[in-house]
């Protein structure tokens, strides 16, 4: 429950006066909680620095160290104070959390140390207030990354050991993805890199004019045509290597479909395809013209370097994520170009021998002017043209220069915003989950409290009282409040499961003879040892009963229940803040699901769940006919004992 709920509990209880006149049954008496001796000031001595606070302040959060009875372990009777051998500077923040309900994160302290203090005092890191949460998370993530980097560096040195039974495929894939793992992979990595470079260089060089020495008039000829064989061999070699690499990757890929769709494999394909197409294309002039264009794609081999270069990959990702801003830039540029080109065209229309022959022709002028290139191949000659030309170049600076920083800052902002939005969404989810858990925890605590017979007057037997006593005063009173509401409306709180089960049972045909078998059982310690109906078995029973009413199913169910299922206890009093289900307070409340071994086989399955109902100690006290549909375990002192009962 949230911070000051304990403050408001007396008020909520007082408000129950509104239910009094409406209750059709007598309301339960208030819990005999010892009245607190007013409020007292506690002294907490942390490494010599004394902090004093009201006891109520610390009691606000009963599932932390200071709010629970755990602090009694640190009580020093001689000095009458609670002594903690911890950092006093950090304690200040912890104590302020109790006072204000917000946990702030100290800026100048190491985040790890702060975490350790939080863990010691039983505070969950999620409690850090919104004002400090982001910074806390960032610093924590930094820390984690730094530690992870160190670990990785360690690992990269020796290389993670592959599971012994890894197939060739897995080893191959790993070799491809992490070339540093083995020498062979490294060699392969460098060889492919070398051949990519060779291929690119060859593509470039083959267009350089070589002096044809054999001819009389030295004719310039591109090297590619002078040494066709050499270049062809080099090309073949490269393509062979690339093809081999691609096929190997395809074989080794854990998910071939995904690999086929990935960008890198597409680049690979595009890099080697022209060669193969060229092999199969006949050597006639028209097609080879088209084929020549295909050779352009060979330059895509340079993109294969992105496997070797992290920077290229990051650039690619940046462009991809900034696509809309770039698109906007292009769009605004296009608009401006069209506008100015039109204007220039009409301004220069009159001139003869003008370069501005059409609007598209004027595009070139506009682009060159706006990007402040100014080649000078097209210049306006009319005055109007010159005026508009100058406006064009001035606005060019604006149009080009403005979006670029916007894109840059946009990119940075969007990137961080995304991260923040994800964080916030995750926080929201965690918060909602925590609230839901707290709610269910409270409900479960109350239901558990009911099962523990805490609502009966003067519980019979020691064992039960122990369980009940371990709840805080707050819980006593809160549960009493809920019990009053139940009595007022003559309905009981249950959980979702039993509710649906009850619905199911009702739909079966109304087997309502439950409590009758209960009250017949003897009251006393032995009754406490009796069966607790395991939720699972009951569910199974209902499901079985729902499906068919055959006897054979019943026996199967009995066998299941005989197995003595154990269920972890529902989160009890230390609920709410700590998300992890708190292990039961003490052995006494350890609920185990031992079911009565049902002897008589030929019993209708629907009735067998009745056997496994917990007996209500002091069941006579219940005057109402409300049926107890309890499916949570009752406390069993000696788990080994299983009561055998018959129908």
């Amino acid at each position, binding site marked *: 429950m949230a911070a*000051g709920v304990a*403050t408001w509990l*007396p008020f*909520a*209880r007082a408000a*129950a006066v509104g239910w009094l006149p409406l209750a059709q049954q007598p309301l339960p008496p*208030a819990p005999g909680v010892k009245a607190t001796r*007013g409020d007292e000031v506690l002294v907490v001595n942390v490494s010599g620095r004394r902090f004093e606070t009201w006891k109520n302040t610390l009691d606000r959060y009963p599932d932390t160290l200071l709010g629970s009875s755990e602090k009694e372990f640190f009580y020093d009777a001689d000095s009458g104070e609670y002594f903690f051998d911890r950092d006093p500077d950090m304690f200040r923040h912890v104590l302020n959390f109790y006072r204000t309900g917000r946990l702030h994160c100290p800026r100048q302290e190491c985040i790890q140390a702060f975490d350790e203090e939080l863990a010691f005092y039983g505070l969950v890191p999620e409690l850090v207030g919104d004002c400090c949460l982001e910074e806390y998370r960032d610093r924590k993530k930094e820390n984690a990354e730094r530690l992870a980097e160190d670990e990785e560096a360690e690992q990269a040195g020796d290389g993670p050991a592959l599971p012994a039974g890894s197939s060739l495929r897995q080893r191959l894939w790993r070799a491809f993805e992490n070339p540093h793992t083995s020498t062979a992979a490294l060699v392969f990595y460098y060889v492919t890199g070398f051949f990519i470079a060779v291929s690119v260089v060859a593509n470039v060089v083959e267009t350089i004019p070589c002096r044809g020495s054999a001819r009389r008039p030295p004719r310039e000829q591109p090297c590619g045509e002078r040494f066709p064989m050499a270049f062809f061999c080099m090309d073949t070699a490269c393509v062979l290597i690339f093809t081999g690499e691609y096929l190997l990757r395809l074989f080794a890929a854990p998910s071939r479909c995904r690999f086929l769709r990935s960008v890198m494999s597409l680049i690979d394909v595009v890099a080697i395809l022209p060669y193969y197409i060229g092999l199969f294309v006949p050597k006639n002039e028209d097609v080879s013209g088209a084929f020549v264009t295909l050779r352009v794609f060979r330059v895509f081999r340079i993109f294969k370097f992105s496997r070797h270069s992290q920077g290229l990959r990051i650039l690619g990702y940046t462009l991809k994520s900034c696509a809309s801003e770039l698109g906007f830039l292009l769009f605004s540029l296009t608009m401006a170009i069209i506008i100015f080109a039109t204007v220039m065209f009409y301004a220069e229309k009159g001139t003869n021998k003008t370069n501005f022959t059409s609007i598209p022709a004027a595009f070139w002028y506009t682009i060159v002017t706006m990007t402040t290139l100014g080649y000078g191949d097209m210049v306006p000659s009319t005055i109007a043209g010159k005026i508009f030309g100058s406006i064009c170049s001035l606005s060019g600076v604006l149009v080009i220069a403005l979006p670029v920083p916007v894109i840059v800052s946009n990119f940075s902002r969007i990137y961080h915003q995304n991260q923040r939005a994800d964080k916030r969404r995750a926080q929201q989810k965690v918060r909602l989950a925590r609230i839901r858990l707290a709610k269910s925890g409270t409900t479960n605590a109350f239901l558990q409290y009911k099962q523990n017979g805490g609502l009966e007057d003067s519980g019979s037997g020691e064992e039960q009282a122990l369980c009940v006593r371990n709840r805080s005063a707050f819980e006593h009173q809160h549960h009493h409040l809920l019990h009053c509401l139940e009595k007022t409306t003559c*309905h009981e*709180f249950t959980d979702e499961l039993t509710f649906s089960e009850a619905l199911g049972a009702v739909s079966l045909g109304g087997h309502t003879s439950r409590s009758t078998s209960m009250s017949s059982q003897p009251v006393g310690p032995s009754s406490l040892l009796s069966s607790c109906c395991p939720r699972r078995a009951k569910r199974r029973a209902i499901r079985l009963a729902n499906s068919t009413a055959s006897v054979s199913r019943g026996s199967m169910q009995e066998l299941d229940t005989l197995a003595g299922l154990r269920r972890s206890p529902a989160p009890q009093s230390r609920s709410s803040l700590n998300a992890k289900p708190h292990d039961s307070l003490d052995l006494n409340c350890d609920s185990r699901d031992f079911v009565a071994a049902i002897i008589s086989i030929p019993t209708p399955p629907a009735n067998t769940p009745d056997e496994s109902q917990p007996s209500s100690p002091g069941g006579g006290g219940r005057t109402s006919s409300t049926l107890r549909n309890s499916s949570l375990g009752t406390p069993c002192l000696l788990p080994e004992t299983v009561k055998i009962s018959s129908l």
Partner: protein
Amino acid sequence: MNRCPRRCRSPLGQAARSLYQLVTGSLSPDSVEDEFELSTVCHRPEGLEQLQEQTKFTRKELQVLYRGFKNECPSGIVSEENFKQIYSQFFPQGDSSTYAAFLFNAFDTNHDGSVSFEDFVAGLSVILRGTVDDRLNWAFNLYDLNKDGCITKEEMLDIMKSIYDMMGKYTYPALREEAPREHVENFFQKMDRNKDGVVTIEEFIESCQKDENIMRSMQLFDNVI
């Protein structure tokens, strides 16, 4: 722009105004001033002695109560929303907002839309330290939604529904639609002596005093604080 009369709110005027602002470079007025309109309303209760006189709490009790109250509501007053939220924390399974609204109206005796510490403590004093008659009076006041001195069936039905809402969906036995109505019928049967369809304060107190259960349950409130 200055020639444009104040009443001129036509789109044309607005367009012209924004064009003017665009040309002269004046941006829209910042909403900085709005930030300072944060309500610095802070309600302080009257002195401790006065509260001691008005209520039946001891000095220490008042101190403890106020410290808790002030911690939760530093501004000194509880709005209806806050109230509902606080109350809903105690009833996670159901929807307690309607009942909380009724409670709020019962505590807010001067009907100014907020519960101050005095209202809070006055209400608590009646419930926790008052006589049985005081408590019954207070309960009657709670039920009487329009404060006209008598409880009609509709009012009682509203209250009953809001109480049943607090139970939520998962109850045993399952809540039926008619349960509140039946409960109301029971109530009126018990309380409405002259069968005129409304329950007045005298009938209410008389019937409650005759009911053993209710009288016994009154002890509930004796050691809440």
